[in-house]
């Protein structure tokens, strides 16, 4: 079955089973779990308390742990149980050696055993790329053949015989003996299986959370503890708040880094406003570097459906003087060119995503005191507006 042509038949049972499985595994949208103690009988006291707003449900907090890494400006979750929880309950983070979910260890073990039953998404991607490459070669060969045929026909003064040129929708991969899976048993690998079991492979991957994701989990749910790598001690909320902002200030030349800490246009703050906004509306927010944007919005998660929206974070200064005095060069803060916008819109239209420009207004330091930046409460002074972009073709879009 080809991976690049759309699956028209859509194996109903297989798709349904996978969907139910996904609904079960990814059932919790956030790391917190609400549990109601199972009472066989209706309990009047608890019910009355419930009516007064004192519910019987307990909040189960997984209390995950991560370590702050200043060089990569991120929080690393090395404990595999915690990283599974954070990924499955809200799709937080990304495996640093994988496309999405940390699957490096699984892939390595599969490669060793050479008997993989489940393909990880990376392996599916490789198969798809190999198929697409083969399709392109077949198409190029067919085009060359058609051109040669046309030349020959013209030279002989006859009609050219038609040559079938494969199209993306109908091409089927042929079973090439040379292009087989690297996991098909070769003599060397079968020997390995009969040998002694190899030494256990250490999992060198971690789940990497951006500073925005980590702060969202800490501030709103208190389900993540961040360890300071220098002291190995958990950091307090105040320390986290100032460390996450200082990461961007420390990159500046020394005389500027101190006053920069009190600025409202710290990249951490601006990006956090956008992240928090979309997350609080229920979207799953992931990074958008693959599509030349800042954020991708998923309705339920990457596992369920492709992202529908691509968000560009555009900072806007309430006071232009702040922009002139800014030591940070925030991306997209300057007026952009039509060619740039057109490019980004094209890239996203081709993958059926709608482009959203999210304008984040940075408060003026003349109006709001800079001391407010000492606490997360300063986020209330930011505002965000979205502009949805779609290309309009007057000739075609008449309805």
């Amino acid at each position, binding site marked *: 079955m080809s991976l690049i042509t759309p699956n028209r038949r859509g194996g109903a049972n297989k798709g349904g089973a996978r969907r139910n499985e996904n609904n079960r595994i990814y059932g919790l949208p956030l790391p917190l779990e609400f549990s109601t103690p199972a009472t066989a009988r209706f309990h009047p006291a608890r019910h009355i308390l419930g009516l007064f707003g004192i519910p019987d449900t307990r909040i189960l907090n997984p209390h995950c742990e991560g370590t702050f890494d200043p060089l*990569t*400006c*991120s929080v690393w979750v090395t404990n595999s149980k915690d990283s599974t929880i954070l990924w499955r309950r809200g799709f937080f983070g990304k495996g640093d050696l994988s496309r999405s979910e940390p699957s490096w260890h699984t892939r390595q073990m599969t490669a060793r055993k050479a008997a993989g039953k489940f393909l990880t998404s990376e392996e599916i991607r490789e198969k798809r790329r190999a198929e697409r490459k083969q399709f392109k070669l077949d198409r190029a060969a067919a085009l060359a053949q058609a051109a040669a045929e046309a030349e020959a026909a013209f030279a002989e003064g006859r009609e050219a015989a038609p040559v079938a040129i494969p199209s993306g929708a109908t091409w089927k991969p042929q079973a090439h003996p040379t292009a087989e899976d690297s996991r098909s048993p070769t003599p060397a690998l079968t020997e390995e299986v009969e040998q002694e079991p190899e030494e256990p492979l250490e999992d*060198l*991957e971690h789940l990497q959370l951006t500073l925005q*994701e980590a702060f969202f989990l800490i501030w709103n749910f208190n389900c993540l503890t961040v360890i300071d790598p220098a002291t190995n001690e958990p950091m307090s909320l105040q320390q986290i708040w100032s460390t996450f902002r200082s990461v961007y200030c420390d990159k500046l030349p020394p005389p500027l880094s101190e006053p920069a800490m009190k600025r409202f246009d710290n*990249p951490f703050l601006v990006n956090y406003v956008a992240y928090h906004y979309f997350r609080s509306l229920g979207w799953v927010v*992931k990074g958008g570097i*693959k599509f030349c944007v800042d954020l991708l919005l998923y309705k339920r998660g990457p596992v369920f459906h492709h992202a529908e929206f691509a968000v560009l974070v555009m900072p806007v200064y309430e006071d232009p003087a702040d922009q002139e005095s800014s030591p940070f060069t925030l991306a997209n803060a300057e007026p952009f060119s039509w060619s740039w916008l057109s490019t980004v819109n094209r890239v996203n239209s081709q993958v059926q995503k709608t482009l959203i420009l999210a304008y984040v207004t940075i408060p003026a330091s003349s109006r709001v005191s800079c001391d407010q930046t000492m606490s997360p409460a300063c986020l209330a002074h930011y505002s965000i507006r979205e502009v949805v972009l779609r290309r309009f073709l007057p000739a075609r879009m008449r309805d």
Partner: protein
Amino acid sequence: MDTHPSYPALSEVLPKYPKVAGALFQTYNDLKLAQQWTDLEVLDLPSCSRGALRGKRPQMDTTLYVIPCSLSESLSTSWLQDAFKELGEPPHIYLAINAEDSSIVYYKISPGIVKPPV
């Protein structure tokens, strides 16, 4: 990061260029562990003030060059030209653009115009 098994190979170059240390570390790990490149070496590129990587893709024999950079940096064509000169004019280099969530996007850059392969 210092306890990570990849750190010793990078220990000379990482402290020299702290602003791009994260990008170099992420790119090195991706190439070595995820992409399974062989003969991976760390080079020092003073003209671009960063470390670069040189290695071979699995099952291929050509030596390829990868220059890591971070998404928040701004580059210029003169920077790229300096890189080409310092690496000894390879036919093409890969620019590894790192994001904070550890996504890496690789761009193949050639010094002149290139015809599509197919």
